[in-house]
């Protein structure tokens, strides 16, 4: 008992000294569990996040837009893979992680349960959803767990093109016809609030924040990053000439920040708990892809066996 207490104290001292924790280091079970949950949830979000955008690849309005969107969605697949491999350093295996996504045991970002109804949504996702993800991920480049922090550095380098391509789509629409501008406005109307919800429950209702801050898994609270996002995004919307759908939104001179209206947390919890517009569709698509890909995984193993046998035979002859 005494010994466990010592280990915990040494661990916390290392965290407080801003040392990184690496896979084989001793860590409290709860730290490991929290990380596995958070990294897996992050990985699942990257993977499920490909679906709403994938919906528009074949209907992108030009070849330029199409190659960009294709590259972006491919990056998200890469992000998912970096993160799964970071989670695996904590002793969980890939198959378990995937199972937990498919059975609904693991969560992913609720934003991906909203539908992409028009091309302008692809612009709004890049600008707002990737923009929000970047705020969170930049913070996480300084997270205390080494493999997670390194995955974040790699991801952040790739993200900025995602946000820029989204903003450029909206900029083009906003400089186009009235109908195009209306499309951009409609997309902002639908994506604004769900984007603010991406940062998670407000600090007073967030059960994990305090411990995660102490372990320096998180370096800022949900409300802090949400505010940072609003402050960065409002001028960008003004530049586009479209209106953020919040009558309470206004600059607060004394705080040095934008004030914004209350978030509909009922909607947030509805979507988190499986009742968003696309929850079932998203999981169905993932399970289908996994099942229909089973033969590829098996064929690759069979081919690897065959190649090994052939190489062995060849060395014997030589």
């Amino acid at each position, binding site marked *: 008992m005494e010994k466990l207490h010592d280990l915990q104290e040494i661990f916390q001292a290392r965290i407080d000294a801003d040392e990184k924790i690496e896979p084989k280091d001793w860590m409290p079970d709860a730290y490991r569990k929290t990380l596995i949950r958070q990294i897996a949830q992050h990985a699942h979000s990257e993977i499920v996040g490909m679906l709403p955008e994938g919906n528009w690849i074949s209907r992108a309005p030009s070849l330029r837009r199409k190659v960009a969107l294709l*590259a972006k969605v491919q990056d998200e697949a890469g992000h998912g893979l*970096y993160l799964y*491999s970071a989670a695996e350093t904590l002793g969980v295996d890939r198959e378990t992680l995937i199972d937990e996504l498919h059975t609904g045991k693991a969560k992913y970002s609720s934003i991906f349960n909203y539908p992409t109804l028009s091309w302008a949504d692809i612009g709004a996702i890049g600008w707002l959803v990737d923009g929000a993800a970047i705020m969170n991920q930049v913070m996480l480049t300084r997270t205390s767990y080494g493999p997670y922090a390194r995955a974040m550095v790699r991801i952040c380098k790739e993200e900025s093109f995602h946000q820029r391509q989204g903003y450029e789509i909206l900029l083009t629409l906003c400089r186009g016809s009235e109908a195009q501008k209306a499309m951009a406005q409609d997309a902002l109307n639908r994506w604004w609030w769900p984007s603010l919800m991406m940062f998670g429950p407000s600090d007073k209702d967030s059960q994990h924040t305090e411990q995660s801050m102490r372990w320096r898994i998180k370096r800022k609270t949900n409300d802090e990053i949400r505010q940072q996002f609003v402050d960065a995004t409002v001028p960008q919307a003004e530049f586009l000439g479209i209106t953020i759908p919040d009558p309470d939104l206004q600059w607060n001179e004394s705080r040095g920040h934008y004030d914004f209206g209350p978030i509909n947390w009922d909607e947030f919890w509805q979507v988190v708990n499986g009742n968003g517009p696309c929850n079932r569709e998203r999981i169905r698509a993932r399970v289908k892809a996994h099942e229909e890909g089973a033969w590829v995984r098996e064929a*690759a*193993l069979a081919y*690897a066996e065959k190649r090994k046998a052939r190489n062995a035979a060849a060395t014997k002859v030589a």
Partner: protein
Amino acid sequence: MKKDWPLWEVFIRSKNGLSHKHVGSLHAADAEMAIENARDVYTRRNEGISIWVVESSNITASSPNQTEALFDPANDKVYRHPTFYDLPDEVKHI
């Protein structure tokens, strides 16, 4: 059949003159496919000109519990560093 592809550690040389550096891991059925997957996962933006893959189970790592025992012997050997030696300032290029 339920069998995961094995895990591989990936090392990339970003350009000639630099060593290969660990970048992460991935699953693949064998070494050749691991290299092909590593190309797609870790070098989408010309991050490398050469890839090594090693099956993770083949890596032997020192244990963090032995850090002291392993590295202590080097700790007190200050005479291995140039600053240990006292030379007058007038002596140049040394």
